[in-house]
């Protein structure tokens, strides 16, 4: 089995699925001839032509809006937003049309499509090439939100997303686009939406993470092991619909919870996880629920490694819980 990285997994999933499904159309800025600024769509323009890999004008509301129309008319669009930070001009299309069309039309119309966007920090992109704004989409009923953390899951989840019947916001952790590699089978396989993965078993503390933060969490777990603390790590993979059973299972097992995400702490998706735990499993808790998250500031440039959740910050949270 070939070893590939995360962005190659995206590319492979798109290419294979486009061969199988003629309704798939990719559209976005620089996705065609240029192959995407991260090369996620490299070679697709050459293979599938300009009708299926559409370089668009600079308008995110145009990209998402026309993709919704295509979806209504039976195509299977996979629009790309070049950086998640640039999705806001399309926010109205997403909140008003994409999320609500099925509901508002009484089920007469629907618009399944997958919005792909690289997200998160770690590439020295400053405020506008580093944001993690998944919480906005998680709070918007009608959308599914998927965030893979490994090449295998990226391919499997992207295929599931493309085959789903609902609109999916598919966020790719660009920090690890190239750095995380693993064996990924060629050809068809899927990873189900809505199922978390126990990335590491443990009995003392549970870390709940997703995207690039999974790897920081795993590294912290490894460090903790050396200190004799046995850490379990849950990779959510899908934020909406959340795998509540997996979350509650690990909470009930360890009674100590740390949630890690890059997005600013206040109002981030970690808040929802903490709230659900405090609603459904509070009697199992042996201490406070700790969120290790981005700070409540815009994303900085020079000092980004101090902004993003790090192994030392997670270690501190582990210590705090173990000593509680």
């Amino acid at each position: 089995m070939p070893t590939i990285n995360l962005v190659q997994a995206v590319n492979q999933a798109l290419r294979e699925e486009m061969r199988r499904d003629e309704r798939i159309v990719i559209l976005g800025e620089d996705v065609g001839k240029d192959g995407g600024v991260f090369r996620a769509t490299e070679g697709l323009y050459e293979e599938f032509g300009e009708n299926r890999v559409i370089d668009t004008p600079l308008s995110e509301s145009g990209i998402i809006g026309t993709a919704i129309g295509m979806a209504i008319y039976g195509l299977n669009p996979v629009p790309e937003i070049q950086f998640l930070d640039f999705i806001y001009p399309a926010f109205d299309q997403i909140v008003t049309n994409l999320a609500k069309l099925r509901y508002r039309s009484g089920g007469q119309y629907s618009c399944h499509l997958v919005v792909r966007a690289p997200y998160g920090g770690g590439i020295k992109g400053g405020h506008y090439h580093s944001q993690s704004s998944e919480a906005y989409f998680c709070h918007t009923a009608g959308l599914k939100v998927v965030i893979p953390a490994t090449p295998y899951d990226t391919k499997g989840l992207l295929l599931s997303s493309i085959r789903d019947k609902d609109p999916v916001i598919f966020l790719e952790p660009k920090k690890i686009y190239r750095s995380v590699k693993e064996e990924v089978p060629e050809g068809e396989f899927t990873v189900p939406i809505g199922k978390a993965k126990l990335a590491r078993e443990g009995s003392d503390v549970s870390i709940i993470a997703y995207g690039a933060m999974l790897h920081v969490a795993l590294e912290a777990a490894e460090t903790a092991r050396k200190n004799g603390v046995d850490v379990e790590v849950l990779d959510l993979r899908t934020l909406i619909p959340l795998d509540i059973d997996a979350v509650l299972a690990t909470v009930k097992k360890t009674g100590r919870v740390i949630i890690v995400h890059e997005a600013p702490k206040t109002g981030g998706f970690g808040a929802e996880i903490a709230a659900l735990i405090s609603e459904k499993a509070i009697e199992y808790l042996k201490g406070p629920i700790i969120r290790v998250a981005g700070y409540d500031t815009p994303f900085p440039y020079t000092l980004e490694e101090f902004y993003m959740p790090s192994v030392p910050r997670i270690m501190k949270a582990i210590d705090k819980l173990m000593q509680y």
Partner: protein
Amino acid sequence: MSQSRPQVKDKVLQVAGFQKEREMKGEPSKEELIHIYRVMLLTRLFDTKSLNMQRQGRIGFYVPCTGQEASQVGSAFALRRDDWTFPTYRDVGVALIRGASLRSLVAHLMGNSNDPMKGRQMPSHWGFRTINFASVASPIASHLPVAVGVAMAMKFKNEDKVVLAYHGDGATSSGDFHSAYNFAGVYKAPIVFICENNGWAISLPVQRQTASPTLSQKATAYGFEGVRVDGNDVLAVYRATAKAVDKARRGEGPTMIECLTYRLGPHSTSDDPTRYRSREEVEEWKRRDCIEIFRSFLKKEALLSDEEDSRIRKELEEELNSAIAEEEQAPRPAIESIFEDVYSSEPWNIREQFEEAKEDFSKRM
């Protein structure tokens, strides 16, 4: 500050000899002319009735279209059955000429269990899949990029269908207008934009909406043609649209048609237009009522007699009254319908919330 009377070339109803021109390809037959008239009249009756029902508290809200029937009916009449329309909240005439049933319109206004929208949307937020009449959302112009996407998909599938997308004068200021028009131009999408310039966006007159002397000239910024027609002249609207639709069908790209017309009533049942516009302006436009104009044309051309006219009106009133009477019997939607159709299948959180809600519902029924 006031919506001036149109200065446009393509006037049909004011020139004599329409009959002679009928050989023109695609020109409506006598039966079709009467059909157009019927639908315009039905639109007017529906509108008047709905406004009244709102005042009586029988429906909660309504967006009237009186004055704009010619722009709506004349344009949509140029379509084939398998073409699509993307209407606004105000486009009752489009729904009716496309074949929407009165009962479904009334059911929607009542938000009852027969409402195709399942009582989820405010009145006037229609959507009828069976007649390719897209679902309305309130945010102005948000449907326009979507309409272009449908047109692009038609082209992608090598079909010869066309999309007709409606919007107001106010909508031309929105970002989505710009995205939609630009994409339509770049991809030569088979779409025709019908701009119902009714002079006002709630309280803002079109002259303060934009410094552009006309709205139709905005099309040139996107590399396609914009034309201006007398929006109260149903046949002028029809002709301009038929021409643009043909062009789009031939793969020659989009057209914008600015229909100069006037909103004779309030913006919606929540609006009081006397706060911002003069009675004189309204009166002036009332004298140009598009239905009156068309009726006198039909009579002058001996296509419609007084008796026929009264008979039609009576028929339509009966149809309308019976639709209303029937829909007023229908119950409100089942309460569990709140939880359906958010996704293609129910996720655990919605199921859980429904379970919790059931008890509350049963107590409060």
